[in-house]
């Protein structure tokens, strides 16, 4: 099956927070899919890192561009 690339724009979300948008995309993804999340909330970076560590999915890239964080994640941990 071809991999999907899911783009998630979570810029400007303070409450409940951009991590909720990542989780939503993850729910609908399958192993092999790529999720790309954009966020402005400063808490996003440590949250993504912790999420990757605990769920065992793969972080391909986490960069900051002019106040926007972009995380590129490969879904690998689904059972």
């Amino acid at each position, binding site marked *: 099956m071809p991999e999907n690339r899911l783009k998630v724009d979570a810029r400007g*979300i303070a409450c409940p927070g951009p991590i909720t948008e990542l*989780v939503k995309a*993850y*729910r609908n993804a399958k192993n092999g899919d790529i999720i790309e999340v954009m966020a402005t909330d400063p808490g996003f970076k440590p*949250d993504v890192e912790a999420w990757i560590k605990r769920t065992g999915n793969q972080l391909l890239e986490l960069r900051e561009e002019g106040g926007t964080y972009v995380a590129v994640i490969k879904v690998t941990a689904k*059972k």
Partner: protein
Amino acid sequence: MKKRVVVIGGGAGGAILANNLPLEDFEVTVVDRSPYHYYWPWLLYVAFRGSRRPMRREIESLLKPGINFIQSGAQSVDLNNRKVVLEGGKTLDYDYLVIATGSRPTYEQIGGHEKAVEKYGDYHSTVENAERVWKSINSLKQGTFAVVVGGDPYRCPPSPLEGVFLAEEFFRSRGLRDRVRVVFAVPYPRPYPAEPMNEVVEPLLKERGVEYITFFTLDRIEDDRKVAVSMEGEELKYDALVVIPPHVGTDVKISPEDVLTTDRFIQADKYTNNIKGFDDAFVIGDASAVPVAKTGVTAHLQAEVVAKRLQGEDARNSGRTNCPFDLGYGLGTFVISDYRNPVVKLPPSRFSHMAKMLFAATYWDMVRYPELWNPIFEAYFDATEPAKLARIYV
């Protein structure tokens, strides 16, 4: 000539918007599938306190005389040709359209979800399901009571933890706290997703002995084994379980379709609520995809902004949230933030709890008589601006 405004949905956002329009200038028609407007926050007290207080009123009784009400579902909207088609085929033309159809739980994303709701209930759908939760907690004399956040988005970000706090209080008041474990599972890194508010609530969970599991993305419920299973295969054993259902947006067919997100929320300008690409159509409240929490307060503030814009004023949303948060034992807080300021770390107090109950008590009046309540709310929102509070509660 009066401008024709069609409002789809007579809930919090739709009814407040309609009542804020001067009828000398506008011919206002509200369309709702249901004859009733529900005060949804009360589901929490039906579920965890066994409240029997009526939580709905007839929409017609909440609208000012002179506003037309049509009880019918809206089937489709054609934004380019300014037409709304109702179930049954009637067509409405408009000069301005406001979509305020809210959001609804979906039980299709999680395996075994529907069956679990039939058995244990939930408090984000119907009064009947909230009554089932009350039955479930009353029949649980020992074992594990689990509240699991099933997916995003859902109405009212504090509501999962409010259920947890009230359940803990319930079991303690029944003298069962040493026999009933209360467990809370979330897909996030911490119990409350926004960090500053988490700093307020996490210590309370610890203090009250509520266990919590983070990074738990619910995949399915296997009720024959009484386990909830995460997407990574982690298992949570329960004896009774309440899942916060993920919500989806509108069931109205909208053309052009590209204004909708994949989960059917309507994309709009976050400052003006204009539906993407249309200056004569708006979406307010839970139905919108703007980056702000799905709460009645938001719907209310957006309704006021759109009412002003329809009257030619350049009003804009600040993205303000003001979600009351019941922490149990008569304590409360509020989740306050806006587009420019992160969530304030507002400490628990009896006063905040009282303010929550005061909002509930004045709700129907507030919907019906905006001319009386708008100035009071304006003063309140002004005094509690996140930028101001942040200087006090660091």
